[in-house]
């Protein structure tokens, strides 16, 4: 079986989360591996949460804002 990475994305409500919504509106298709967590600003994501994500088994973390 091929490797299926698990990716956590922290997305800002005002820009990248909105962009992810827009990707849907435009029916863009992308891989299903990413799970987005909505935050009010990418700046609120404490570095500790990022390291926790890796500890919990994430293969990649995206912070978008």
């Amino acid at each position, binding site marked *: 079986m091929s490797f299926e990475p*698990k990716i*956590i994305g*922290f997305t800002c*409500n005002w820009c990248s*989360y*909105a962009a*992810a*919504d*827009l*990707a*849907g*509106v435009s*029916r*863009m*298709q*992308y891989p*299903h591996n990413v*799970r*987005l*967590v*909505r*935050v*009010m*600003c990418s*700046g*609120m*994501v*404490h*570095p*500790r*949460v990022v390291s*926790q*994500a890796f500890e*919990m*088994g*994430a293969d990649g973390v995206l912070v978008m804002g």
Partner: protein
Amino acid sequence: MITLAEITDVTGEPGNFQVEVTRRPRFVDTEKCIACGLCAEKCPKKVDDEYNEKISKRKAVYIPYAQAVPQKYAIDADNCIYLKSGKCGACEKFCPAGAINFEDKPQTVNLNVGAIILSPGFAAFDPTGIRTWGYGEFKNVITAMEMERILSASGPTEGHLVRPSDKKEVKRIAFIQCVGSRDLNKSRNGYCSSVCCTYAIKQAMMAKDHVKDLEASIFFMDMRTHGKEFERYYERAKGLGIEFKRCRVHSLEPVSETSDIYFRYIDDCGRQLETQYDLVVLSVGLCTPPSAMELAYHAGVELNENRFVESSSFDPVATSRPGVFSCGAFSGPKDIPQTVMEASAAAADATRLLAGARNSLTRTKEFPPEIEVASDEVRIGVFICHCGTNIAGVIDVERLARYAETLPNVAHVGRNLFTCSQDTQDIIKNAIRDKGLNRVVVAACTPRTHEPLFRETLKSAGLNEYLFDMANIRNQDSWVHAAEPERATEKAMDLVRMSVAKVGLLTPLPSISVPVNQAALVIGGGISGMVSALELADHGFHVSLVEKANVLGGQARHLFRTWKGELIEPALQELDARVRSNPLITLHLESTVGSAEGFVGNFKSTIVRGKDSRVVEHGATIIATGGQGYVPEGEYLFGTSSRVFTAIEFDKLRMVGDRRMKQAKNYVFIQCVGSRCEERMYCSRVCCTHSVQAAIELKESSPAGEVFVLYRDMRTYGQREELYRKAREKGVVFIHYEAHQMPKVRPLEPRRLEVEVFDHILHEPLRIVTDIVVLATAITPNAATAELADIYKLPVDADGFFQEAHAKLRPVDFAADGIFMAGLAHCPKPVDESIAQAKAAAGRAVSVLAGSSIDLEATKATVVNANCDGCAMCLDVCPYKAISLVSEEEAGGKRNARVEVNLAQCKGCGLCQATCPKDGIYVAGFSLEQIAAQVEAALAG
């Protein structure tokens, strides 16, 4: 809200009208109807569905469309078997709610209101029976409204682009422009419908999106993409390979065997050509429907010869009857943003008359007292939305629901066709009450659009509105993984699990409100700024009006007439006098805004005048700082020849009776100077109309002189088209040129110039000898735009104009609350549209200033006193300066430092939370613990 209702009589006077309203029977009791749809399922009578432009069928008992408000059925009396013949009654038998009432009768309701706004909209032109296009005769010739439904995922073909005759996928499609517009032969409509060019581009683009190798052609006379960002859209369409053919279509005929459509047309070189298409879309125009003409009659409002409401450029939403206003396509064909602006303007003007009676008849919504849940066991309700087929067509919602039931603390799972519908709100409320739910998760579209609705539902069920989370299983799942239903379902399960994990940790948050300073600041004393200031003052609010020049009037001081022919200067003088004499307006001339701080309801701006500066406090801000004329950089001998002018110079010189103008016989106007080019990829909207109007005046004052207009696309949109027709009748010569073959201007002899332009019909260069060349120059942003963008942290678009919050629905708002825009600072526009936007901006500001306080989001930084040691690292990172350091004395006399948050200034961004090394501050609703719980849940699958 009163549906199936029409005005049948209006008496009384402004401020106090008696209106007779006739309500047609619905035959369904809206109080009882639960919109279950059983009636429609059992109804034996099929009727053409007008929502889908009659491409599909509905029943005689129906709901107009899936998201309809109110979400209640109605019986169509013209088609109901029972109402026609007394037999059937199936719906009544099967309705579980007993909502069917065949005895329902027309009702007359008398309403007593202060003002009336008419917004009946438009009808699409019906091309049935007109030989040229064969609509109604050939199955594969359809109208744009039908195309709109075919392209729609919720439409009759579920968004598959197939043609009506044989359901074959369309490979070659043609759009024909100006069907029922700019045409007095085949229709009665001489005007341009203003929106069809851009909507045809949109449909062609969407069609190409549906069928990858689709060949799409648009047959047009002039491509009128004159709105904000439309020109770039047009360029994008060209880049996508959509063909634009400038020509007249001669006739359409079916190719008998295949039901393709055979096309004959004459191209811009005069060649006769023939081709074949699978499907032909007629870009039908906008016209006033008979029902709207009836409305005008009953309301006592006059219509013009085009059957639109006639209005003055200076009072664009007024009608012939005082106290009655109009907005939208009823007063002329227009697009959505212009319609929304006029709607806000009409609301502002209507309520201005009634300012004294503000809040006299309104009630504030009462919510039941909040149920205390903090210490209760967590009981989560999960509501999964099908969104019609948007979600359920991809995701296995049944499996998702079964899965949600297994998650910890989930006490109830429900599925709904449309979770956003009104009846589902009742379902959610009942579930909260009956199942004792104290947390709610909705798995549906996006919280960005629907979170407020569901929060309100929680509130009305007595639950704190923050005990809620949404799982985005549409925009970020079913729509983006449409080809992988299995994966999409798994992802939906993860997303629901994440929301359930988060919502269990949420705690009730108290509501916060801030007082509103009920005064406004208007920046810019041009025509827009003056109109905004007066509108606000008439509503009873104090206004500070800031203008950098020592006079009021802005760019309008250089203009001569509106397109309707009204003189601008007298109107400006009147506005000037009204502004100066209004006791509620404080005028700051030769002043600018130097700096600003604050937020909606509470702004503080520093007004600078020379060395003086003063701070004004205001609750709302309107930016109307205008634009400027483009100064040609040597194009067409500008600056070299004393006989080449910009349009504004030309107007001025004619007004003062300059000798060059008096002696000249021949004139050449060159359009698009500085517009629609690489540096400024936008249309300046006003220049075509201005040149045409000037050309008519020149022809009228000296019919023997020759007037030429060299243009790329003649954009006399809407009812301005009549000026274009009149100019041609008067003998003005219009010559089309292409961007790659720009006209050339050469000095010929003293006081004469030669203009060379490539004539497409003769296929050779044409030389025109002229006395004067007038350049129709662009409107560009001015320096104030960038300065204020910086001061108020506002976005500007790629062309340097201010960026509105939403291109269609919020054309006067900035994304930041409490700040609005009007006039040229937003984009190029003529005087009437600037005034409409100025009134709209004032109206939007009134909706902020009308209340004495505003409720704020409770998502704010919260200090954990036990952990905070006052290290103050968060003070430096806070972009809103919302955090301050305080110290307090403990019992033992020891001083303790910690931080404090100003809730009104805090935007809940959480930079503090990410910076704090001691967990001393967090954002309510987005704490690190809650975020981590979501991550953990995401990875647990």
